[in-house]
């Protein structure tokens, strides 16, 4: 029973939070060991420190990360580029991660999606899983499990590619 429309995913539809408007401009493309853009993992979280920390964590495994703090920017990026793995935060100021996931699955059905959230909510986990999320993490999460999930996702992408 997946969501039928985007409205079902709007747990709390987005709205502007001007006091959080300082946009994050984190350039992840210069991370060492970047092989190709296809290999990169996109992370979407409106909290800059999370973005930075996840970026560092994945970098230790040589995984390239492209960070986004604004869901709109991310969706625009997805329109033009292939994104193998996306890690989405749920509670963001402008749009919930579940909305982004719904749109993402329409734009890029092959993207492997990992969802993380700051508040444990069984309903959110269920919805995300039903929409095809391969992993769901409640912050703060275990680094091994997280990396392993990302690796699994990357492998799945490669497998999908080789299948193609």
């Amino acid at each position, binding site marked *: 029973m997946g969501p039928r429309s985007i409205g079902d995913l*709007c747990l*709390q*539809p*987005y*709205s*502007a*939070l*001007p*006091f*959080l408007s300082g946009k994050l401009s984190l350039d992840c493309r210069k991370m060492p060991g970047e092989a190709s853009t296809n290999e990169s993992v996109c992370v979407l979280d409106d*909290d800059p*420190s*999370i973005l*930075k*920390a*996840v970026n*560092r*964590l994945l*970098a*230790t*495994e040589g995984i390239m990360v492209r960070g986004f703090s604004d869901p709109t920017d991310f969706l625009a990026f997805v329109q033009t580029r292939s994104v193998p793995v996306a890690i989405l935060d749920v*509670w*963001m*100021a402008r749009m919930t991660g579940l909305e982004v996931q719904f749109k993402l699955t329409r734009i890029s059905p092959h993207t492997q999606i990992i969802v*993380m959230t*700051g*508040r*444990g*909510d069984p309903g959110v986990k269920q919805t995300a899983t039903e929409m095809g999320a391969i992993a769901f993490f*409640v*912050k*703060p*999460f275990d*680094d091994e499990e*997280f990396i392993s999930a990302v690796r699994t996702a990357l492998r799945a992408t490669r497998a999908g590619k080789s299948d193609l």
Partner: protein
Amino acid sequence: MAGEESITCRHAITTGSWPRGMEETREENGWRAASTPQLRRSREFVSLENPGRLIGAAILIFLGYFFGAQLGFALTFKPHPVSVLWPPNSILLAALLLTPPRTWWLVLLAAFPAHCLVELQSHVPAGMVFCWFISNSCEALLSAALIRYFTEEPTRLNRLHNVAVFCCCGAFVGPFLSSFLDAAFVALNHWGGDTYWEVWRIRVSSNALAAITITPLILAWAGTANAPRQATSRVVLLEAGVLAMILLALGFILFDWLTPDTDVALLYAPLPLLLWAAIRFGTRGATAAIATIGLFAVWGATHGHGPFVEHPARESALYVQIFLSLISFPLLFLAALTEERKETEDVLREREERISLAAGTAHLALWTIDFKRGRSWMNGVGRDLFGFAPNEQLSREVFLARVHPEDRERVSDAIDRARNASQHFEIEYRLQRESGETRWLISRGRYTRNSQGQISELLGVALDVTRQVSANLELRQQQQELARLSRIAVMGELTASLAHELNQPLAAIASNAAAGKRFLAGGASIDPTSFREILDDIFTDARRAGSVIHGIRQFIRKGEETRCSVSLDGVIEDVLQLLHSDLVNRATSVQKQISVSLPAVQADRVQMQQVLINLIVNSLEAMQEVAPERRRIIISSDHSNGLVRVAVRDFGVGLPEDNPENVFNHFFSTKAEGMGMGLAIARSIVEAHGGELTAESLSDGSRFSFRLPAKPSVGQSTSG
């Protein structure tokens, strides 16, 4: 007739006279003791309302006039018909003064047959009898009218003014003028052998003497004006009896027993007794004593005894008259003075009793300190409260010794200021009783100065407000506890959001730490700068998590409120940080319109946060049913006229139309799960800070604003 009735009515109102029956009921109920002397004095007219009393009064006047005349005849020098004292006119005057003018016709009518009877017995021709009645009536009427005119009705001899008027009009002008008529009648009727002026002189002196001795006696004893106010004790009765006995004995010895060659100095012997009577027994005593001595003197003189018989009859009569008049006048004045003093004392005592009663009922402590006389007074309630012995002399020192040591200096300063400026003072302080118990008191007092500008008296009152103070304290504690519980409740509602606020930095810390660990484990050479960055980020996030926890702890901590200088801008920032997740969760945007250079307020920071949180939570709830794109809160702040204002405006359902103020009532809630305490608590907090919280309905939502007094900026006088 109608006119007369209305006059009667007015009279009854102005003099406060009561119908007889009613008066008795009042006295039975003990009203008499409480009624003022003014009232008591004015109820003195002998009431002639019912026919029985009317006839009784007429008979009394008839008898009085008749026997008065008989007495007059008895006190006449034989064989010469020179009357020393002619009482009928004085009795008539007394009757007129005792009755209201509208019944004067009756007085004259009752006296007329008595007059005729007496005169006809003496074989006086009918014409002369009638003429004398006219002149007698004229004297009484003239005197009575003048006395009434110059004194407040009804005339009683218990005040100096009345005695002076009585002596002038009743004992002088009346007899003086009417005697011209009388002498003229005698001359017209060719009665007796005396000349016009001889008749005039004899009549003036005898009538004047009667007026000064007989009329006051009747006036004093007929009404209750000169009656003792309290029931006469046995001791007083005994004293009166002794005085009467000595007076009678002395009168007998002096005017009946002694021979004419006795030393004139002995005539002064009754003086101490007369003074005794006047001072101890007032007008009643004085008039009775005068009448007694007068009767003895006249009786002796007219019957050939005592010191006055040596001279010819007319001279003797004159001497007796002069003697009696000279002692009567001053004695009447002295008696009136005594009565006035007694009355003043009574009024003062009654007033003091009434004040004491009222103060006792209200549990007020009252005191006065008379600095000039070095006397002090305090009512029983006050002595009980302060723990003063019944006769303990009051002073500032003994008072201050009972004030709580911490308040002593402040109280002393306040008293000093009031004393120097001769102003009222009002101090709230604690009293430390001997038992160790502390009571809260409010004292008000006033220093008065005499005409030389010296402090003469201190009047003060103190009220025990311990119960109110402790009730207020308890109420405040309850309010604080309620506010705290409400903060905990708000925190409970926000748990999920708060968890998110904490989990964000914790997740960043965990990831950063894991990254660092992995870098090290990888064995690769690591750039120290990058590693330091990781540690810096961990530190920053740890601080961030710590501040979230600190904020929550502060918000729900239990403890006394602490008021300090608080920037409401800072409070707005704190609250928005605390509510960040919830606002995100509810997809509500917040717009800030903050005034630059907002002055600080003197407040408890946590309570200010609570006010703002409650207002924002209220706004969020008001917008639950509103389309997401319209969910917006505008928080604005500004200041004007020494007030700082913070407003929270939402685009929700608005206020109840019938009574917008309802939202501030406890337990008013439009939500099924809400307790409806938030706004009520917010208002009580703002009001406890000397501010106000108001709500206004707008076309597309509502606005809640609170105003607090701005704290004076540094450099500005705090008192100004």
